[in-house]
């Protein structure tokens, strides 16, 4: 699709002092959609935060390279500037801080010329109520509205890669479809590479995936195409030794 490349090699990560991700490999090219599925406790959120560099989630081994730049050791904001975006599972409220002022800082664009217009366009594309654009970040938004807000920010920031941590939770069927359409569009629009981490199969109903990975106990135990989704739908994670 384009030249961007995200390479995760033998990644080990700790959360709360305990190793949760035990040597994970993943290669994502610009424009590809990878879905990582795993049961509760398989290390999904730790993986997401290890990629983004959340304080308290420690990478103890391996590497994360984005277009050849090593992200391990960089703080979250520098990883974001290098081209990685994380849509959080539970986006927090930031009282008094508008979406526009936060994104103006993220883009180093204090003039904000055109930013309001971009926000309005992105809001329209995913059915995010324009009235919410004037609210403080996530304040008084429902879980589903917060998820749309993450995708809206993704659309404004246009990073080469995004990691989506349970983007499907809290979204109803229509909202999930709108988000999935926007993501697929982004893969061609600017060659976005997607790593969608989820517990649920239903994301795969809406989002066309180039590769599906099954995460169990901090390792990818199986990788495949749509046939793997069908298998997971039938048997769940049982065949991987998970009840």
């Amino acid at each position, binding site marked *: 699709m384009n030249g961007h490349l995200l390479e995760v090699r033998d990644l080990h990560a700790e959360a709360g002092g305990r190793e949760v991700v035990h040597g994970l490999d993943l290669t994502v090219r610009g424009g590809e959609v990878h879905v990582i599925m795993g049961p509760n406790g398989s290390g999904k959120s730790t993986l997401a935060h290890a990629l983004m560099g959340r304080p308290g989630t420690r990478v103890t081994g391996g590497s994360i390279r984005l277009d050849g730049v090593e992200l391990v050791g960089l703080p979250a904001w520098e990883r974001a500037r290098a081209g990685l975006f994380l849509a959080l599972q539970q986006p927090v409220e930031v009282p008094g801080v508008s979406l526009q002022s*936060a994104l103006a800082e993220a883009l180093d664009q204090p003039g904000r010329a055109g930013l309001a217009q971009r926000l309005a366009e992105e809001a329209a594309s995913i059915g995010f109520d324009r009235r919410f654009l004037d609210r403080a970040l996530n304040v008084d938004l429902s879980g589903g509205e917060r998820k749309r807000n993450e995708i809206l920010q993704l659309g404004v920031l246009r990073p080469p890669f995004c990691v989506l941590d349970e983007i499907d939770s809290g979204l109803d069927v229509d909202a999930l479809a709108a988000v999935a359409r926007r993501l697929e569009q982004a893969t061609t629009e600017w060659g976005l590479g997607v790593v969608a981490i989820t517990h649920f199969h239903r994301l795969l109903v809406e989002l066309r995936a180039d590769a599906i990975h099954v995460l169990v106990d901090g390792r990818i135990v199986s990788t495949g195409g749509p046939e793997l989704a069908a298998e997971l739908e039938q048997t769940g994670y049982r065949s991987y030794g998970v009840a």
Partner: protein
Amino acid sequence: MRGPEWLRRRRSEAFEEFVTTPWPSAKEDVWRYSPIEALDLDAYRPVGDRTATEPPAALDALVARVAPHGAVVTRDGVRDIGPGLSPVALPNGVSIASAEHPGALGTVLDGGDALVRLHDAFVSDPVVIEVAAGAVVDRPVVVVHWIGGAPGTGDPAPAVFPRTVVHVGRAARASVVEVVAGVTGDLRGLVVPVTELDVDQEGQLDYVGLQVLGTGAWHVGRLAGRVGTDAALRSFTLGLGGSYARLRTDAAAAGARGRCELRSAYVGSGDQVHDIRTLQDHLAPHTTSDLLCKGAVAGAARSVYSGLIRVRRGAVRSEALQTNHNLVLDGGSHADSVPNLDIEENDVRCTHASTVGPVDEDQLYYLESRGVAPDRAERLVVSGFFGDVIARSPVPSVVGVLEDEVGARLDRITSGGVDA
């Protein structure tokens, strides 16, 4: 000191009372955690009727920003129209007197601790704002108290006692902005302001108090409000300056269905001490009070918030809400938050909440995961913390000034430099 006979007599009576009133002690609840015992009165001298300083250009700029249509100005507590200060054009329904009749002072706050007695003994020109019954005043009346200060080299520094009284008549509506400024740079000074806000039946007063003294000032202020039946007081006070800056706000809902909405904020840095005391006093049935107070301390600054909700017997079906949030931005800074309830009636609803802590890590991580640099993320979160309360200022025309004043302090704090 000048003034009508009754005022001069009031001063001397207050002075006699001051002499016999014990100096506050940090052992008293209402002074706990305060450094009041360290205040050396001998280091100050009442200014009296002298206006020591010409108004600086900074005063004009401040007045122009807050009050494009002019302000009532006192310099070192003395009301006069000096060079560069034009007489204020008052809105219809508003008149200003300098305490021409007995009873203009002390309708809301009469007597009190040693500092109030001291104030009453040395107050020079009280500013008394009278809003006629039924008047609806559409632009704020602005009062500026400019305090000159003096270099702290041997000679006593000036002590100034600004007094503002607002009386809103029955079914009248008005807004008042009061600014206490001065004692800039390395200068020193003691400022002991008393403000009385008296709102008659069905009246409404919107009040903003802005304290932007330099960090060489000691500020020991009292704000006392009272609302009558079906009346409302909405206030916002912002404390930014002062070495020690205390503001005690007592709001009495004295008439049935009276409402008090109290907002305040403070920012401390360097070795400033902010001392905020509030009393929500419910004396009548179906009264409501809603208090939100937010502060931040950085460097070696500290703050005390102590708030009491009191519901007197007979104040049935009253509702009181009290919230205090504190951001502690550095390891050397400290905030205390002490909520108290004194409820004498059963059928009431009172809630209080308080937090003390650093900037929320999840909020910072959220912004940083978008690519916002850590110092900018902290600046955004902290200014949002204050923006949230400033936006609720009851006088919309000063919101921009309040944001800029807070923003200027936050720029100094979050740029990591040592604040003056």
